[in-house]
């Protein structure tokens, strides 16, 4: 029988019992849809992690204080990272070039009768420059692809210098919106404002900024901030010394591991951390590099992939068994038809072809439906908050092929069974 005629016969076989065909297809549809969706979720999670640490340069070591939970709140695990820890590091640690330090707090800012409660960021001079270069924010309506430079971030005036950080100069730089809120159109640069009652000279205004990621623009208030030298911020905002975030730059990227152990040794010495009874250091700080974070992410992704493969195998096997079961019933029901076909000259391979084509068509249709369902529910999975799920284009052909393969494998036995019928008995079958 020609392929086209076999195809028509197979199609008739499927449409003969539509409800049964739909139920049979369900297993494969669910299997394929879940593969597509979980792959997209995995993609989203990976993108989210990569996005989160995108600003972390490959030559940087991020150093933060360890915290622990006590009385229901977070408290430092040991000694906090101090301003001095960070300031002295480049001089004491051979492989560290420079450090960027920052603290974040809240404060009351007053000019005339205007009083605002707002975030206050204490930074080293380099850190402000780096913040501009990190690429999380950009001046409003910045042309895409245009390289960013520090000047573009300054509306007018200037930013503070390293010298001003070292001498605790009472200077500050205002965010665009903050400048507007405090001065209502008057020129802020050269004016003195009060930050937690301490006098502070406004030396510059940051350009109007927006986040590079359009989705975050509504939530973030990047233009409401006050930046001051970290030394001044620590003096003015805190009763006791705050924990400082340190980013250490390594001179030679190929010696990151070595630099990490040097930093650890330096901090252990400063924090008086000795080996415990088991010969381990109980550090009160943690060091992470881009490589560490992405490595951990990759490991997680691999575990995730294994789970996914297991899920796919289970659901497609269940789907396949469903197909086999239904096809076996169908073959039995159609014994008489098989007998008639054999009597008028169908060879065994014609019968095999007919039933194989039927399962293959059914699984192909299920595969396509599964893909459609998967693609449609991907946006709904965004509520799982694993980052924005992203459809993996490769997952479509792969899951389709797997669906086809499942149908073919599980359809083979019923088809061979049908072809092995004895025509005499098949014709007499009631």
């Amino acid at each position: 029988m020609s392929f086209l005629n076999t195809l028509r016969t197979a199609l008739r076989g499927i449409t003969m019992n539509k409800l049964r065909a739909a139920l049979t297809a369900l297993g494969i549809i669910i299997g394929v849809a879940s593969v597509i969706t979980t792959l997209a979720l995995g993609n989203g999670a990976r993108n989210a992690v990569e996005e989160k640490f995108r600003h972390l340069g490959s030559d940087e070591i991020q150093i933060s204080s360890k915290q622990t939970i006590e009385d229901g709140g977070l408290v430092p695990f040991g000694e906090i990272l101090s301003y001095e820890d960070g300031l002295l590091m480049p001089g004491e640690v051979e492989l560290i070039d420079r450090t960027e330090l920052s603290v974040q707090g809240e404060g009351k800012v007053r000019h005339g009768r205007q009083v605002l409660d707002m975030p206050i960021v204490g930074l080293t001079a380099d850190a402000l420059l780096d913040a501009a270069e990190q690429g999380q924010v950009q001046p409003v309506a910045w042309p895409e692809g245009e390289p960013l430079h520090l000047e573009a971030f300054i509306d007018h005036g200037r930013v503070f210098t390293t010298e001003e950080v070292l001498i605790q100069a009472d200077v500050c730089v205002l965010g665009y919106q903050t400048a507007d809120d405090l001065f209502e159109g008057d020129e802020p640069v050269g004016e003195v404002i009060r930050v937690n009652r301490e006098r502070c000279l406004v030396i510059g205004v940051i350009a109007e900024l927006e986040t590079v990621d359009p989705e975050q623009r509504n939530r973030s208030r990047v233009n409401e901030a006050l930046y001051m030298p970290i030394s001044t911020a620590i003096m003015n905002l805190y009763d006791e010394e705050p924990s400082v975030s340190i980013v250490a730059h390594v001179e030679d990227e190929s010696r990151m591991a070595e630099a990490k152990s040097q930093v650890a040794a330096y901090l252990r010495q400063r924090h008086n951390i000795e080996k415990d009874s088991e010969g381990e250091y109980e550090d009160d700080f943690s060091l992470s590099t881009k490589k560490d974070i992405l490595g951990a992410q990759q490991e997680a992704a691999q575990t995730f992939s294994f789970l996914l493969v297991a899920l796919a195998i289970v659901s497609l096997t269940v789907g396949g068994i469903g197909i086999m079961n239904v096809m076996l019933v169908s073959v039995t029901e159609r014994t008489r038809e098989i007998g008639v076909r054999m009597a008028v000259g169908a060879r065994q391979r014609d019968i095999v072809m007919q039933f194989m084509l039927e399962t293959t068509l059914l699984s192909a249709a299920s595969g396509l439906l599964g893909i459609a369902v998967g693609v449609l529910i991907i946006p709904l999975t965004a509520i799982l908050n694993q980052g924005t799920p992203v459809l993996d284009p490769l997952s479509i052909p792969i899951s389709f092929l797997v669906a086809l393969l499942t149908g073919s494998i599980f359809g083979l036995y019923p088809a061979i069974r049908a072809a092995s019928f004895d025509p005499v008995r098949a014709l007499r079958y009631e």
Partner: protein
Amino acid sequence: MKAKRSSNHNVIETYDLTKVYSMGETEVHALQGVDVRVEMGEFIALMGPSGSGKSTLMHLLGCLDTPTAGTYVLEGQDVSALSNDERARMRNKHIGFVFQTFNLLSRISALENVALPLLYRREAEEALQRANIALSRVGLDERTTHRPAELSGGERQRVAIARALAINPALILADEPTGNLDSATGTTIMHLLRSLNEEGRTVVLVTHDAQVADYAHRKLQMCDGRMV
């Protein structure tokens, strides 16, 4: 469509045809050495009570089964020991079956049922045309698109006969063709078979009904797996 009408050669020759069924411990000797010759253009009635072996013989003659021993020559070719697929090819080429229960496929039209054997020959282009001719030969021009359920019993049997005719067979093998029909309709069907025979077609009729057998030129009586 005219039947081949060359010299009066034998369509069927069997020599000592034997069929033994093993049913667990016991063996059933369904055929015990049957010799039959059927000449081209003959109309034969194969008669006998149930259990006489006439169904077994019909299955062997129709290449639906293989003999345990003996030789069966169909259209000059020894088909006693052919493989499944080779027998399928012989059925497809030479044998038109007409069954008591019609054995039409219920989901397809009369025309498609008639074309079915030709589709297994990969002659799809001609199949529908030849099926149409066969249906008009049995007087069903107007019913080609009907499905079997929409046809009367007599019409269904005529579709089955058209299906047998469509392949231009060497042999029409009719197994109790009137068994499921009332006597008037049965008579119509027997008239149709007789007129096909008069056009030169070889017909082997299996029946236990003496009245039906009277249409044949020659009656073969079977009993206990032998010709009597």
